[in-house]
């Protein structure tokens, strides 16, 4: 009996004009999201390569490592373009210094403010908006629609149990709608291969899990709307209820959770932190200038070689101690801010998980590496690189370079032409390589949300089942 009902459900959905139109729209949007993502990826890679080349040229034109204004650039990752997450808000460029705090500038949205308003069409958008609407459109009248058309009574005038009917309805809907959605997603994967997006094995696994999460999210909305359909007699009412649930889930809960979390767990704004840092730096600079003046005034000798060398040594020791002081202060400030922010984020994510859309979004961003921790992880990579960069600069210049170093140079006509023309070799610089987040860590970060999506599917599946057992067939 289940087989007959399942087969009917599959046919009923696939033969419908509603399916043809909505599936075509969903398929086009999925493929478009892959296409736009791939195009954006290639464009980002081109920009990245061009920026690197310009930076190398500027280094090559310099003759002294002290003059170098080195910049490092965030390399685009293939999955970032499928699930943008916070990637476009995070700066792509960093002015690398041997000491001092590093900042990220030139985010995608600062370069293209229009996209900050309308955002890019990515797979995340297609899943949370299009897939969920697609699911609701087919689920809202799954049960009460059959009652309105008289087919429910006709079916149950036969030897059909309620359990087999609802199982056929749920499984049939999931298969009839879920499997076709896999087709454009798999074509999208082929597009990644065909259009030259370099994907590692880990990235394929993450993409596979991302697609799985997308289908789970779709399943949640489908089973939820079927459950509503089994709880309400009229399809017009269940449509309205499903739409309200959708609006809350997609639009209100995620935004509301951030507002609520900021009320529950407050954290100072970034501006307040920056202000404290600026005040500290200004104070440090004043103290440092005073110390230097004192050092100069205590020495009356002329600027001979030994004076320059002593001054360099003094500056090195001062730089070291001030840098340590700065690092300690900034570290405490950053850690305190980070802890408060983590707590706030935990509240926000915890509350937002009421919404299946938010659950998917959190899982998707974790899988694609564009979650809210992305900036922090990248800054850690930059800090690591800064250490090796500082060592390199010290090795090249013989002194510690820092942002307020006083450089004493003696100019003489005796300087040889060879010295003047000796330019730098940028390839000597240590390479900035960002270690990808390990697969295990990525999966661990998204496992809770993937599990939650599975639980929500089971919950609404069971809910629809129980609701139908109590449904008035008349």
């Amino acid at each position: 009996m289940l087989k007959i009902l399942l087969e009917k459900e599959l046919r009923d959905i696939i033969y419908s004009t509603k399916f043809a139109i909505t599936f075509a729209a969903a398929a086009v949007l999925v493929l478009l999201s892959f296409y736009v993502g791939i195009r954006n990826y290639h464009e980002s890679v081109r920009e990245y390569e061009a920026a690197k080349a310009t930076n190398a040229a500027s280094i090559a034109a310099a003759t002294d490592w002290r003059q170098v204004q080195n910049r490092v650039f965030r390399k685009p990752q293939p999955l970032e373009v499928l699930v943008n997450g916070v990637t476009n808000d995070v700066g792509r460029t960093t002015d690398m210094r041997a000491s001092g705090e590093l900042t990220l500038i030139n985010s995608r949205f600062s370069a293209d403010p229009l996209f900050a308003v309308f955002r890019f069409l990515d797979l995340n958008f297609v899943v949370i908006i299009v897939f969920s609407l697609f699911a609701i459109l087919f689920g809202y009248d799954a049960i009460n629609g059959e009652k309105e058309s008289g087919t429910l009574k006709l079916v149950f005038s036969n030897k059909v149990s309620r359990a087999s009917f609802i199982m056929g309805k749920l499984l049939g809907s999931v298969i009839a709608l879920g499997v076709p959605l896999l087709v454009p997603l798999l074509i999208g994967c082929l597009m990644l291969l065909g259009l030259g997006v370099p994907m590692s094995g880990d990235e394929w696994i993450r993409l596979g899990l991302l697609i799985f999460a997308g289908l789970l999210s779709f399943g949640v909305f489908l089973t939820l709307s079927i459950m509503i359909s089994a709880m309400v007699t009229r399809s017009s009412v269940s449509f309205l209820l499903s739409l309200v649930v959708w609006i809350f889930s997609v639009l209100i809960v995620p935004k509301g959770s951030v507002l609520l979390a900021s009320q529950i767990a407050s954290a100072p704004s970034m501006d307040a932190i920056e202000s404290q840092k600026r005040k500290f730096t200004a104070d440090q600079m004043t103290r440092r200038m005073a110390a230097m003046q004192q050092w100069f005034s205590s020495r009356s000798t002329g600027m001979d070689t030994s004076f320059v060398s002593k001054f360099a040594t003094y500056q090195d020791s001062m730089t070291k101690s001030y840098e340590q002081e700065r690092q300690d202060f900034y570290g405490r400030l950053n850690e305190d801010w980070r802890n408060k922010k983590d707590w706030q984020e935990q509240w926000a994510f915890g509350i937002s998980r009421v919404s299946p859309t938010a659950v998917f979004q959190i899982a998707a961003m974790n899988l694609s590496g564009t979650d809210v921790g992305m900036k922090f992880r990248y800054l850690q990579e930059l800090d690591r690189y800064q250490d090796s960069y500082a060592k390199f600069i010290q090795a090249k210049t013989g002194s510690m370079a820092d942002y307020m170093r006083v450089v004493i140079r003696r100019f003489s006509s005796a300087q040889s032409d060879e010295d003047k023309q000796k330019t730098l070799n940028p390839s000597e610089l240590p390479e900035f390589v960002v270690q990808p987040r390990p697969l295990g860590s990525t999966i661990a970060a998204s496992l809770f949300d993937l599990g939650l999506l599975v639980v929500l599917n089971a919950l609404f599946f069971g809910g629809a089942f129980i609701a139908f057992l109590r449904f008035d067939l008349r």
Partner: protein
Amino acid sequence: MDQNNILEAQALTKVYEDGLCALDHVSFSVKAGEIFCLLGDNGAGKTTTINLFLGFLNPTEGTAIINGIDVTKDPLAAKQHVAYLSDVVMLYPNFTARQNLDFFARLGGRQNLKRDDYYNVLRQVGLQEKAFEQRLKGFSKGMRQKVGLAIAIVKEAPAIILDEPTSGLDPKAANEFLAILHQLRAQGRAILISTHDIFRAKEISDTVGIMSEGKLLAMKTRAELEHENLEKLYLDYIQGKVAA
């Protein structure tokens, strides 16, 4: 219990939780080769009676029996012996007439029917050949009613229950429909019809049961109705001019 009765209502009573008595000790039976019409206004209890026979409701008292099986005790077994046609016959609009028939035939236990078998039944109910493989989307109510009747026929159940089968049909379609019911009666099916169409009830029924406010006020056989004005009788009963 008479062994010849295919459908039998024994003091069927339905009182809802809010105290509304929808059916009050209704008893009647329908034999093989007999058409029984339940005649009454909206809310008279006709559809409640049908819902009790189909197991969509449980009786407060009494028993609904189909082919000797108590519907309350074994609803699934009882449903094997009855075919049903609803007043709302939308069916599945994305399926063709044949596909609808195939689905309901298989639900009714007829697993191995071939395309020609379905075509024969559709011919029997008078559906045009060109409509056999057309989707029901564009079908008129009359055409859908024919497919619905085909669904009832293809199950080959000894009992057929029809809820307001001619409502919304034009006179020609209604007459064609009644002609098919005559054929089914001749084949020995026990047919229970609920209707408020007095003239067609008189025309087709072997027995007419007049219902009002959940009670079966009277049962008149074809012979008894020969010389009676059913419309007047019906109005007299429901206005209380004649004692039940």
